[in-house]
């Protein structure tokens, strides 16, 4: 577990002296196209895109299972998404495999975000658990799952987070685990709070936990966000709404499960993660077999 608040690796020294590097001006602290749009404007854009999408599906266009990478209501995406279509590629050897992670990489204590400091973190103690499945519904054991989240007040332990909410000295908000032989993962943590961001005026993110997931093929890699049921901010949030299909969006919402709640201790949430495809769907093509 890194204890650094700095996302920057140690590359500046040699990089700055490297003849290959071109010099650019100082980077801007905010996005050039970030606007002072109101929530009403952003919501209107969200609704317009979704209405157009629904009409398209009704007229026979395909269902979109993934977020749109071109989603203007999420303002910082404007200059950061590819404008040309993705190139269709048959996965080749290395892409049919994925890095091996195991208990050499991750200690069991890393799945409990509430015991990383001397005292108990403040907030609603909760457990989130579920299974990692392939597209056939079969459990995927032995895979790395990483999580990170804000504390109960909606503040991240990150120097770029300037939200004036308190840091919790007993909560860092990062965890890791390896799925067990039946594909299960389980984290104990504190329910994260919603927090403001600067996409538009009075923009707030619904409470969420970031998940990073590996599968048996690198093409199954997922980085996503898990949300909580019935969040009133869903309709207002351009990141959640970048998935334009309601059924697809719903797959990011955990289910409250009272059978996972333990008396006088913690609330329980269930969230399964489904990787695209299945392990047996691809075999290495013979040479010339394209």
């Amino acid at each position, binding site marked *: 577990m*890194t204890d*650094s608040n700095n*996302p920057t*690796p140690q*590359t*500046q020294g040699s*990089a700055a002296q490297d003849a290959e*590097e071109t010099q*650019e001006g100082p980077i*801007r602290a905010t996005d*050039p196209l970030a606007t002072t749009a109101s929530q009403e404007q952003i919501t209107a854009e969200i609704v317009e895109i979704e209405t157009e999408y629904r009409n398209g599906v009704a007229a026979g266009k395909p269902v979109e*299972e993934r*977020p749109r990478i071109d*989603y203007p209501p999420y303002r910082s*995406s404007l*200059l*950061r*998404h*590819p*404008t*040309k279509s*993705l*190139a*269709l*590629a048959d996965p*080749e*050897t*290395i892409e049919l495999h994925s*890095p*091996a*992670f195991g208990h*050499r*990489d991750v200690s069991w204590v890393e799945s409990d975000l509430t015991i990383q400091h001397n005292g108990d973190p403040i907030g609603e103690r909760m457990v989130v658990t579920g299974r990692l499945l*392939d597209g056939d519904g079969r459990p995927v054991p032995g895979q*790395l799952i990483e999580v*990170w989240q804000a504390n109960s007040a909606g503040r*991240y*332990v*990150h120097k*770029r987070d300037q939200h004036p909410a308190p840091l919790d000295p007993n909560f860092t908000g990062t965890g890791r685990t390896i799925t067990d032989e039946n594909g299960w993962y389980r984290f104990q943590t504190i329910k994260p709070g919603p927090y403001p961001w600067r996409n538009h005026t009075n923009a707030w993110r619904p409470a969420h936990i*970031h998940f*990073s997931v590996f599968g048996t093929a*690198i093409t199954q890699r*997922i*980085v*996503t966000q898990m949300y909580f049921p019935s969040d009133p901010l869903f309709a207002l949030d351009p*990141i*959640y709404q970048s*998935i334009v299909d309601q*059924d*697809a*969006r719903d797959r*990011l919402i955990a289910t409250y499960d009272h059978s996972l709640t333990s008396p006088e201790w913690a609330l329980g949430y269930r969230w399964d*993660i*489904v990787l*695209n*495809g299945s392990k047996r769907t*691809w075999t290495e093509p013979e*040479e010339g077999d*394209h």
Partner: protein
Amino acid sequence: MTTLAATPGQTVGPFYGYALPFEGGESLVDRSHPAAVRLYGRVFDGNGAPIPDALVEIWQADEQGRVPAAEGSLRRDGYTFTGFGRAAVDDNGMFSFTTVEPGSTREGALPFFSVIVFARGLPDRLYTRVYLPEAVDSIADDAFLSSLGERAATLIARRDARGDLVFDIHMQGDDETVFLEHRQKD
């Protein structure tokens, strides 16, 4: 035939920096390794400005083209080649890995690094490939690269004066990097 719909992705957001990067993430081998090479470059947005909050992952075969199966990427022991690297870019959008050049994983196949790009403002991860500079002579023989026409050049690393590999990633613009959609069989 797959039966369950996949969980959709979401942006990595701005705050992964204290969670995903790990010590030694950019060093697949020690720089004293006899075959050590640096793979580095910058990530640019549609205005040509560096993106300071992107995260790059690489996954690769070893020099002999063997697919690594060893654990230990997150806690490197300095001896085991795991094939996986992760590097956050710096404030100039620069990422840098120390690794070895991958070998061909099967006879006649062009070796490449599999690369995943994440960034704040990027609603989902993007895949690309970094081919070695020598691939430039074999584009016509490679079904995938030849399907890309002129844009194939965006996937081929350049060799700098020290013999290291340079690969810039352009999210948009004339030099927009080719990003991949892997074909699913069902």
